[in-house]
């Protein structure tokens, strides 16, 4: 093995060689420069591989002495891990910087090399004073490089940085001196052997000063204003090195010192990390400048890494693998992502984040940016996800619930501003363009590939047993690569991919899983056919779509808690991509992401709380312990958020309605069932083990009932057809939750029955309206009308769907209502029965409103020539119509398998007698009802048909119009503000209180953020004062 000393030798030698080579020619100098960095990275990789292969750790003593007097370099697995990462990113960053460096004199190159030397030295060295020297090497070269843009901002930022950095080094030096004075050695190994040397008064102070100095270097909130100025003003390439490689080295120093710290110190340090994480994210909300925003984000991530390793140490964990999994994972994630994002900001140039729409026309850059945002938010499959899971799991296992809560809150804020930014980039089209720059793009691609490779590595090390789960992101990426293909080809491929997933997965399922499998996979599959109806490229739909379908499969197949959460998050991500593609505004996808992530965090908190003590990552869902109650309630709350119950439904109308017309049906009919599936999976897991479940049932029931009511009520006021259907879905979800909360055989049968029928009829209605909208290019119902004349088939299917929705016999909808009321009255929940009945009566209002406004009434002049919707939209509708008719004729075909899957719960069973289903209170024979209905329908029809010859078919203006003729169809069609009288009578019930609440909450958080960021006055002296005060406060806490 090559001695670690060569790592330093290579770069220092290059420091001297570069100016010489530069004399010969610019390109020679650059070549030597890159060769040295590449060599360093290569060495790191070589060591890492051999150390992983089992080679012993290397210790090198320089200057002919042995420790403690010599300069000792140690290269273990941890060091090599950091070295390889740091040097790789440094190499990539230097490539990004290439354009800027080539304009500078050779000094710039030497400064870069010195910086790298400092970084590597910090990682390798084992004694405090050497650390000081390398830190100064790093700092001074950084101070100089910050000034590279040569503008006023860069100079003042650099100067502020020097003041703060100077203070930090001062403290480090004082601390080092006192350590030497107390312990008589500066060598880490000796100090570690007898850490009690530092536990006295002076010793403590010495150690404190060292740690405080390191912490200042890591830019803790709020003593970090100077760093933010640097992030904003410095060249993104340089800044990316500071925040990734530089921070990484200092973090590693902190890691090396961890064993010296007392419990108290660790606690305070961990707290400081958490505070930094939460508040930096908070302040970032108001930030518009990309560099500074990335700065806040970097700082928060650093805080999280600090917290990660400190808490691990606090929990007494010594295995390096765990540190690698948590702190290493978080750091690696941060390293590549932040590198990527800073380089991207270099690429985009000096634009505030609102103007990042320039990326919208650049698929590769947008993809990279999206990847970075997703990875940084801690979503799967990236390392941050696995690391956070492990970290939070350990926090929960050790009872650090408040910390867990803070981390989740901070992450949520992070998700907010990152996805808002992604929204700006993806949705707002800007006519500016950015010129190609392969020197910047290539390192970004490399970073992305490395990040993905690391994801594979991390997911493997955390033993996700189910190989299918790995396919979820893989399918997404595959379909991203297939994007240049024509849309229809992609649809067929997506159908094939999803179909094969269904074929593989479904036979392995049973019981409720099978029912939901058929619903989610089958439902999506059928509706995906509609995609064939749209021409063009259809960019950005199929990666999300296929990923979503695979996530459905994953959700149902997985047997581990981690696997479930992984699939859940992938599903969220996939659906986010779909809505991002279709939405007209950035607001809807963002709202969806915030609420979904909030819900997912609740589920996450619940899952890790329920994990049995000492469990592995692969703990099965069946092993979860719900006896505490809290865990179960958290999980259910998470699913309720995802289901969009009243109070957290803010995201729902936009999400279900704004996607593409062939995607909305899947989101609204199939995806909404994923929350139901989750609800049922966990309710069956926990059934009987949760204390206080009666109260829980009642609360859940009322949540469901109120959701049904308010969803329905809001639906009747909508002017937008798709939004109306979206609110209708909310109402139907309310019924499902209400039925599920009954915890009885009939209740659950009702819930799943409603879920199945809702899938069918809402699929039909959304597809039908989608077909209409795709022809008319408007979703405002009052602009439509009379479509029955132009689109009779769409009308027919819509009508079937509508009858099924309204619950009118003889179609399937009635079965759901009947089961629901039976179960409710059987349980004794009379008020909820009445509420459900009222809601379903109100549902008639919006049913009529939409069918009248869209299909009936007056055909508008502009739409006299529109054609029937595409046949590809109609095929899935007719498939669903056929299913509805079959289930209506023989309800037994549907109810029996469902009740079999539900199994035996509390309450009476359903009894069958031929086609009559009955229970203690009532009975229903769907087949007879269907027959009778058809009979009584035929008799008058025959009579009317006998008179058909005398009847003249007339046109739309042949109406009685107070003896006048109608003026224009637009003024004759009654559609706008259809239920004005309902607003007058009950309008107070539909005031946007929920929106006001959430907007108020958002306003408050935003105001707090705005107030907090005034800490960063911009004055270097204030920053210095903040550093001093921070250290003082830290001392008071740690003492």
């Amino acid at each position, binding site marked *: 093995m090559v001695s670690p000393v060569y790592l330093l030798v290579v770069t220092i030698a290059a420091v001297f060689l570069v100016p010489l080579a530069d004399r010969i020619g610019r390109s020679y100098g650059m070549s030597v420069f890159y060769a040295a960095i590449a060599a360093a990275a290569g060495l790191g990789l070589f060591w890492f591989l051999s150390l992983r292969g089992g080679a012993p750790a290397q210790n090198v003593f320089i200057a002919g002495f042995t420790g403690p007097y010599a300069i000792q370099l140690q290269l273990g697995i941890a060091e090599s891990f950091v070295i390889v990462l740091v040097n790789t990113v440094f190499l990539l960053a230097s490539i990004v910087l290439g354009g800027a460096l080539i304009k500078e004199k050779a000094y710039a190159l030497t400064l870069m090399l010195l910086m790298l030397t400092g970084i590597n030295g910090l990682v390798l060295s084992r004694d405090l004073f050497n650390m000081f020297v390398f830190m100064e090497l790093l700092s001074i070269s950084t101070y100089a490089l910050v000034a590279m843009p040569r503008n006023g901002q860069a100079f003042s930022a650099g100067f502020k940085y020097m003041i703060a950095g100077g203070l930090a080094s001062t403290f480090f030096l004082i601390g080092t001196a006192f350590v030497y004075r107390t312990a008589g050695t500066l060598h880490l190994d000796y100090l570690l052997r007898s850490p009690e040397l530092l536990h006295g008064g002076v010793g403590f102070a010495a150690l404190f000063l060292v740690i405080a100095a390191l912490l200042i270097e890591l830019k803790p909130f709020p003593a970090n204003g100077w760093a933010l100025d640097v992030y904003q003003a410095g060249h993104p390439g340089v800044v990316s090195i500071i925040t990734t490689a530089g921070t990484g080295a200092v973090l590693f120093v902190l890691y090396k010192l961890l064993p010296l710290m007392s419990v108290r110190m660790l606690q305070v340090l961990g707290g400081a990390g958490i505070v930094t994480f939460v508040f930096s994210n908070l302040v970032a909300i108001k930030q518009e400048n990309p560099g500074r925003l990335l700065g806040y984000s970097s700082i928060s991530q650093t805080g999280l890494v600090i917290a990660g390793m400190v808490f691990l140490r606090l929990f007494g964990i010594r295995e390096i693998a765990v540190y690698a999994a948590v702190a290493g994972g978080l750091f690696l994630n941060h390293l590549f992502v932040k590198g990527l994002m800073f380089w991207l900001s270099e690429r985009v140039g000096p634009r505030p984040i609102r103007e990042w729409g320039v990326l919208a026309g650049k698929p590769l850059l947008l993809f990279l940016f999206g990847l970075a945002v997703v990875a940084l938010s801690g979503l799967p499959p990236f390392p941050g996800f696995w690391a956070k899971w492990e970290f939070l799991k350990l926090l929960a296992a050790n009872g650090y619930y408040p910390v867990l809560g803070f981390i989740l809150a901070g992450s949520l804020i992070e998700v907010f501003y990152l996805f808002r930014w992604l929204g700006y980039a993806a949705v707002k089209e800007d006519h500016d363009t950015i010129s190609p720059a392969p020197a910047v793009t290539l390192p970004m691609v490399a970073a992305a590939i490395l990040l993905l490779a690391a994801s594979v590595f991390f997911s493997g090390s955390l033993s996700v047993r189910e190989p299918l789960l790995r396919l979820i992101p893989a399918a997404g990426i595959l379909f991203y690569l297939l994007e240049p293909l024509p849309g229809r080809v992609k649809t067929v491929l997506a159908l094939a991919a999803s179909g094969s997933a269904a074929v593989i997965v479904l036979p392995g399922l049973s019981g409720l899983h099978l029912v939901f499998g058929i619903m989610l996979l089958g439902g999506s599959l059928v509706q995906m056919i509609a995609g064939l109806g749209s021409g063009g490229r259809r960019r950005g739909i199929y990666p999300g779509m296929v990923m979503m379908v695979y996530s459905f499969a994953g959700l149902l197949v997985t047997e581990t808690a981690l696997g479930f959460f992984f699939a859940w998050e992938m599903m969220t991500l996939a659906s986010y991509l779909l809505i991002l593609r279709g939405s007209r505004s950035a607001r809807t996808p963002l709202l969806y992401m915030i609420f979904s992530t909030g819900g997912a965090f609740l589920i996450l908190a619940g899952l890790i709380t329920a994990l049995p003590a000492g469990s592995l990552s692969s703990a099965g869902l069946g092993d979860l312990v719900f006896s505490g109650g809290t865990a179960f309630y958290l999980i259910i709350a998470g699913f309720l958020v995802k289901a969009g119950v009243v109070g957290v439904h803010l995201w729902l109308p936009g999400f279900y309605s704004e996607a593409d017309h062939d995607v909305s049906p899947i989101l609204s009919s199939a995806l909404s069932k994923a929350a139901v599936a989750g609800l049922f999976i966990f309710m069956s897991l926990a059934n009987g083990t949760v204390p206080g479940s009666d109260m829980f049932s009642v609360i859940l029931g009322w949540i469901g009932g109120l959701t049904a009511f308010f969803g329905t009520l809001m639906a009747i006021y909508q002017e937008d057809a798709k939004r109306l259907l979206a609110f209708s879905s909310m109402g139907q979800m309310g019924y499902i939750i209400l039925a599920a909360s009954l915890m009885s055989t009939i209740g659950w049968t009702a819930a799943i029955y409603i879920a199945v029928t809702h899938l069918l009829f809402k699929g039909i209605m959304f597809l039908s309206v989608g077909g209409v909208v795709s022809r008319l290019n408007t979703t405002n119902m009052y602009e439509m009308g009379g479509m029955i004349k132009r689109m009779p088939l769409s009308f027919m299917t819509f009508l079937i769907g509508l009858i099924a929705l309204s619950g009118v016999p003889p179609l399937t909808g009635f079965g759901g209502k009947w089961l629901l009321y039976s179960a409710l009255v059987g349980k004794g929940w009379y008020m909820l029965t009445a509420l459900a009945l009222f809601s379903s009566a109100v549902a008639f209002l919006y049913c009529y409103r939409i069918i009248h406004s869209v299909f009936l009434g007056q055909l508008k002049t502009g739409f006299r020539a529109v054609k029937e919707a595409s046949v590809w939209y109609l095929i899935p509708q007719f498939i669903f119509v056929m299913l509805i008719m079959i289930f209506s004729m023989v309800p037994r075909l549907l109810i029996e398998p469902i009740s079999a899957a539900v199994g035996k719960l509390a309450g009476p069973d359903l009894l069958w007698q031929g086609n009559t289903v009955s229970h203690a209170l009532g009975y229903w024979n769907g087949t007879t009802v269907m027959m009778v209905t058809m009979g009584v329908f035929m008799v008058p029809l025959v009579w009317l048909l006998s008179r058909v010859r005398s009847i003249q078919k007339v046109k739309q203006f*042949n109406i009685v119009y107070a003896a006048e003729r109608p003026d224009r169809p637009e003024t004759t069609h009654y559609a706008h503000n259809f239920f004005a009288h309902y607003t007058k009578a009950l309008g107070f019930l539909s005031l946007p209180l929920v929106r006001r609440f959430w907007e108020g909450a958002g306003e408050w958080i935003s105001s707090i953020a705005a107030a907090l960021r005034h800490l960063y006055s911009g004055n270097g002296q204030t920053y210095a004062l903040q550093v001093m005060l921070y250290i003082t406060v830290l001392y008071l806490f740690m003492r």
Partner: protein
Amino acid sequence: MHNKETLPNLGLPEHERDLFCDARPRVSKPLASYIEKFLNWSRANSLWILAYGTGCGAIELRPLFTARFDISRYGMAPRPTPRQASLLMIGGYLSVKTLKRVIRSYEQMQNPKFVIGLGSCTVNGGMYWDSYNTINRLDHYLPVDVYITGCMPRPEAIIAGFEQLKKRIKDGRAEGANQYAEQFDWYKANQKKIITDWNMPDYNW
């Protein structure tokens, strides 16, 4: 068959022609006599009135529904829409403007349909006969079954008119709708002579 013929609807601008039905009115032959007799009995005993009350004669219609005269005992009732009415009562003089509305309403009623002209004005223009704006003779424009003269006719006279109409219906003589269809072109020409700003289809289905 002239039923299949379409009307040109020249009064309508090009883009509006598709909004109106352009079929000609048809003659609907009565059924076999004994059935028709029964049906005519029912028609006579269930006269639903569409009252066109812009003339002063309308004032005399109100008392018909009161306890004193009560025409509901004859099975008669007011009907707010021409679609469902079988008897159009023209309540007095017609101007150019109101004639247009009357024609539209009449055409929107279904065969068989009956017209009663109320007051002298419908017969010959009455006291307004020399106005620039009054229609003097209703049956140039619509087939009138019964005229009830007077200025104004009392409710008793109106009831007598109803009796007359019922008699006509029962006798099978009240075929105004078919007459209108048969001589459609003549009626239409007369109508268009008066109404110069014709912005309706030629036949208001």
